């Protein structure tokens, strides 16, 4: 067996240039796949982060009537629900919210907008609107009659920090709720729904405008990592056991987004398969060539008594050794590329000022994200592909008739 390994190693060395080119091709394939996957995963992470940290959180709790119509009357009792949810293990943030729809007016301009009442301190632990202020500041704990506006909403109203906005709405008791709010800040998150159609105010302010004292429409929870979502959802469910409230994960709330993210995952795999199909043909070609060239030599080995099984093993060893060398080189190359992408990102400013895909705005600088399991897959796949594509030439070599083979020139 050891002799077999040595022969295989020598065979690689005998065709130094060809082996080198094959190994380089394989290594570049591995490195580029890693970089490509890091970029796609970066996009995936960014998209998920945008989705979750802009508005949704990982898990949400509602009255069962809420999803159908987002009715003003589908409320939960703030104190009872929060008391239960604050005890949920692994919840990084627990944010209560109320929603309304109002006509906002400033001087002779007006526009319809969604109102979102939030607890500023709790909300900041779930969503990142606070980090996207263009001017002014985010809502402050305990402040009253303040409002922050999405950039487009503010533009429509010609509102600036300090402007007095009138809000008129149909309150829960049927009356015409109306009040004045000062613009504390203007934000731009990249989410069309938030920037074009939402105004935030404090939860108590909105509850009073809507005549919904102590009532909320939604609680959004955030877990420590995206992977903790199922565990968080089940903890929330057990915390609320016995109540009629609806607990949903982000994927259940927004199946379209979940599908886009799933599709994105599928695309990453497809890309991998294409890259490896190309690599496989390269390896197949090299191995076939080396077997054809060595027909006479292999015939001699057979005549000397090397069993067909051993011939197969020898050729497979050659492929595996080539893959090992290429794997190590490719891994090094890939890690270098990944490091660059994670640290500096891919700057597309020369091509675009940023783009929007599936409702998410992307910076012109694309950043990579490294997921170790994907790297492991890439390297493993290289071995599988190399060995699989060596099998046919190997079997062909084993089937040679020694007498016929030795007569070849």
């Amino acid at each position: 067996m050891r002799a077999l390994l040595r022969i295989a190693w020598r065979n690689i060395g005998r065709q130094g240039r060809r082996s080198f080119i094959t190994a380089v091709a394989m290594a570049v394939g591995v490195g580029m796949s890693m970089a490509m996957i890091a970029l796609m995963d970066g996009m995936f992470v960014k998209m998920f982060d945008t989705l979750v940290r802009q508005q949704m959180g990982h898990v949400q709790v509602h009255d069962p009537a809420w999803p159908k119509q987002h009715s003003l009357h589908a409320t939960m009792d703030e104190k009872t629900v929060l008391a239960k949810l604050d005890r949920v293990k692994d919840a990084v943030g627990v944010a209560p919210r109320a929603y309304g729809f109002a006509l906002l007016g400033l001087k002779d301009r007006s526009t319809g907008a969604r109102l979102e009442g939030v607890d500023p301190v709790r909300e900041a632990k779930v969503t990142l609107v606070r980090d996207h202020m263009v001017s002014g500041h985010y809502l402050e704990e305990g402040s009253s009659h303040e409002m922050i506006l999405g950039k487009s909403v503010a533009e429509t109203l010609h509102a600036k920090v300090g402007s007095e906005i009138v809000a008129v709405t149909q309150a829960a008791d049927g009356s015409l709720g109306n009040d004045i709010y000062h613009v504390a800040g203007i934000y731009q998150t990249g989410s069309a729904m938030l920037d074009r159609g939402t105004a935030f105010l404090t939860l108590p302010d909105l509850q009073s405008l809507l005549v919904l004292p102590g009532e909320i429409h939604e609680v959004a929870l955030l877990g420590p990592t995206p992977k903790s979502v199922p565990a968080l959802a089940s903890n929330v469910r057990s915390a609320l056991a016995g109540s009629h409230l609806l607990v949903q994960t982000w994927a259940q709330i927004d199946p379209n987004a979940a599908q886009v993210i799933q599709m994105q995952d599928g695309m990453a795999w497809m890309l991998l398969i294409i890259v490896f199909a190309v690599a496989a043909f390269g390896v197949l070609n090299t191995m076939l060539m080396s077997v054809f060239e060595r027909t006479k030599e292999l015939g001699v080995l057979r005549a000397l008594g090397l069993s067909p099984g051993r011939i197969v093993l020898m050729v497979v060893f050659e492929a595996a050794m080539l893959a090992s060398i290429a794997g190590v080189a490719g891994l090094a190359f890939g890690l270098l590329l990944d490091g660059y992408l994670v640290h500096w990102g891919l700057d597309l400013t020369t091509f675009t000022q940023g783009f929007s895909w599936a409702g998410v705005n992307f910076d012109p600088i694309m950043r990579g994200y490294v997921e170790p399991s994907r790297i492991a897959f890439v390297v493993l796949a290289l071995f599988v592909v190399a060995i699989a594509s060596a099998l046919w030439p190997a079997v062909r070599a084993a089937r040679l008739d020694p007498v016929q083979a030795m007569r070849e020139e």
Partner: protein
Amino acid sequence: MRRLATFPLLVVLAMIFAPVPAHAMDPEVKKLLDRIDDMFRGTSSKATLSMHIKTANWERNLKIEVMSQGKDKALIKILEPAKEKGITTLRVGDNLWNYLPKVDRTIKVPAAMMSSSWMGSHFTNDDLVQESRLSDDYDAKMTSKPDQAPKGFYVITLIPKPNAPVVWGKLVAKIDAKNDLPVEEAYYDEKGKLVRTLTFSNVKEIDGRKLPTRMTLVPAEHPKEETTMTYDDLHIGVDLPPRTFSLQALRQ
């Protein structure tokens, strides 16, 4: 588009029964529509109405004062309940403003919100400014005479003309043959589905005219909800200073 209604809350009525060009219309239909349309005509008016709104979640009563002048000016002021007293809607042409006494501000209703509810009722802002004229925008046809079922009623079906700026797909009006006053008006969407039904009742003589003084609007999707408006008082041809219908006057 010309506008014929004199007081905006009855625009709906005027819409339906506006006179229609003779060439396209059966003289009998035209006579019926003219009779009713003329009934609501006047250069100016002042009315007090009670409004009862019932929805799945709440029920409430409002008292409102409606003043109108010419074709396109109207002012609707809430008198009761106390919490909303003084909230006023001003209509001039296609524009609507709401004045809010609590914050002492006037806010314009944007075009995108014209199909939203007016003050929580089942009437929309659009109903207040609708200028659609049946004679121009609809083809009217008598579909049932009083001797046919339903006995004692005329039924007139109105289909909007191809390019008419109308949100409805079809209107069906039922008119009492005894007094030629409307009893019911059904609004259908473009797919032929019933959207809402407006019924007229409680015929009384007000200011020398016989009028249905109660109108009830029921949305087809929520048959248990309704908005009822009852005329408590109506004066036609009253003298109103022109500045009544200005943004400045809203604040007083």
